């Protein structure tokens, strides 16, 4: 069983985000790390391949400046190899272009029995890339998969819904998107980190993959205004002295909700 995992490399979410004044796109020129949301997909892929008793996990990523730091984390966890699509022409790509690029990268690896992505990325969170990718590749998909197993060549998943969950069966090859908390991502071991340094990552450009137009030229929309939203003001802040519950009671009384 071969699994491809999409891993996005993003600016450290702990740092404040910023827009590039010239293009109004998110700044991504600093150091990038593995999006935490994708660590779950990597772990799930490793577990599924393990359970199948053979095969390998490959990773694909699209990122500027030949960045591989985040991919190395996935390789250190146990993925075997990767394809990085890095091309100045891809700067500012919209979700559809990203999906086309990632689909082409998956094809470059010869496809897989299963492709895994996260339900949404931490920085862009459009949440459309996985399902768009499935459509580009002509694959069935199960988005928001919680429990996932392969049983007799069929994917069985619990799919999160607004009111609960659905049990879904899906033929392979397929694509799934997973949410945080589905599995507990392993920490890369020292051995894993050392091994990751020599694992193959092929770097390709958009034109190597035959995908055009990319970047801004491919987007059917442009940012025309960036403005500050009205900020909410803080009110009264009190240290609890053992009696502050009374403040809450008074506050609620004042609003006539109690």
């Amino acid at each position, binding site marked *: 069983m071969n699994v491809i995992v999409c891993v996005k490399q993003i600016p450290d979410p702990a740092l404040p985000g910023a827009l590039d004044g010239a293009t109004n796109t998110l700044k991504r020129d600093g150091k990038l790390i593995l999006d935490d949301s994708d660590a779950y997909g990597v772990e799930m892929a490793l577990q599924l391949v393990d359970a199948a008793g053979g095969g390998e996990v490959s990773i694909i990523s699209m990122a500027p400046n030949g960045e591989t730091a985040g991919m190395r984390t996935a390789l250190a966890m146990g993925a075997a190899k990767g394809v990085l699509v890095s091309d100045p022409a891809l700067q500012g790509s919209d979700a559809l272009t990203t999906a086309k690029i990632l689909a082409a990268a998956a094809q470059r690896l010869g496809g897989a029995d299963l492709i895994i992505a996260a339900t949404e990325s931490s920085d862009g969170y459009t949440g459309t890339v996985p399902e768009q990718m499935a459509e580009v590749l002509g694959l*069935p998909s199960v988005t928001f998969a919680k429990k996932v197993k392969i049983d007799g060549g069929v994917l069985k998943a619990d799919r999160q819904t*607004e009111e609960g969950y*659905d049990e879904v069966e899906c033929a392979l090859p397929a694509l799934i998107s997973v949410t945080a908390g589905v599995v507990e991502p392993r920490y890369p071991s020292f051995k894993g980190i050392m091994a990751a340094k020599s694992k193959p990552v092929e770097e390709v450009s958009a034109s190597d993959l035959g995908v055009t137009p990319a970047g801004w030229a491919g987007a059917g929309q*442009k940012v025309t205004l960036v403005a500050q939203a009205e900020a909410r003001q803080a*009110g009264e802040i009190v240290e609890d002295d053992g009696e502050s519950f009374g*403040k809450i009671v008074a506050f609620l009384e004042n609003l006539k909700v109690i």
Partner: protein
Amino acid sequence: MAINSVWVFAQVTNGAATTGTLELLTKARSLSSNVTAVLGGDASGVAAQLGEYGATKVYATGDLAGKLPGVAVSGAMKAIIDSGDKPDLILFPQNYEGRDVLSRLSVKLNKSVLTNSIDVAVDGDAVNATTPIFGGNTLVTTTFTGEGPYLVAFRPKSFAAEASGGAPAAIAAANVPDLGATGGAKVTAVHVEETTGPKLDEASIVVSGGRGLGEADKYAMVEELAKLLKGAPGASRAIVDAGWVPYSYQVGQTGKVVKPSVYIAAGISGATQHMVGMKGAKNIIAINKDKEAPIFGIADLGIVGDVHKVLPKLIEALKGR
């Protein structure tokens, strides 16, 4: 370009259109008098309601027989567009099914999508959508270029649902084409979580708990407080991911958007992704032991204290009333 025709991807639960659907219909009819709902399912029970909120027509696929809406409804939409009925704008709810249908359709039409939006307006020839970023601190306006249909997904509660008193929407059949390999997924069982009390996204009081509660058992305090206030219990994603409460309790960017009259956050730090789901509340009360917690930046009343001390006393005080 002028907007002549607007579609809304409609959803139905328990035999009624969802609030999100009614919100989008209300917006749609302010943009065009030609509003069509597209539904993955049977429309006979909801045509009147869809019409009341502004849809003149509803395309319905009929029972999806276990097919997932993403592939099925997008396939049906593409077939209608190919047959010549082409909208200028399609509004989707930013939720699971909305996103799936939107994504599949965007590839079929080779059109970009805009997601997480909170408004759309027509200004002369331009169609502009507004999207908050950085937790809502910054608003970005995006203008569509080229030909429609423009595809936009909206965060819940971006618009207030108001009935227009329109006649029932005319039902038209939408055929789901042969999905080929993409139709390989089938729903085999549906599970609905039992809930009591007001719905989280409709309650006028919401009490949410976060990781500061320390352990799963302590969430009982949040439930008890919510019950005493006739409100709904909610949660941060941290404790949903930890498995303390089901996903349906989650408030935030990837969970429910709530706009209650009072929101009480207990042991929640106030990450931007949480705040976008609740900062529309009229009044916010926060209890957190860290006085630097970002949640205090938007709280009307902030208690710097231990939830294990403040909540039990608060519960006792309310019980005694």
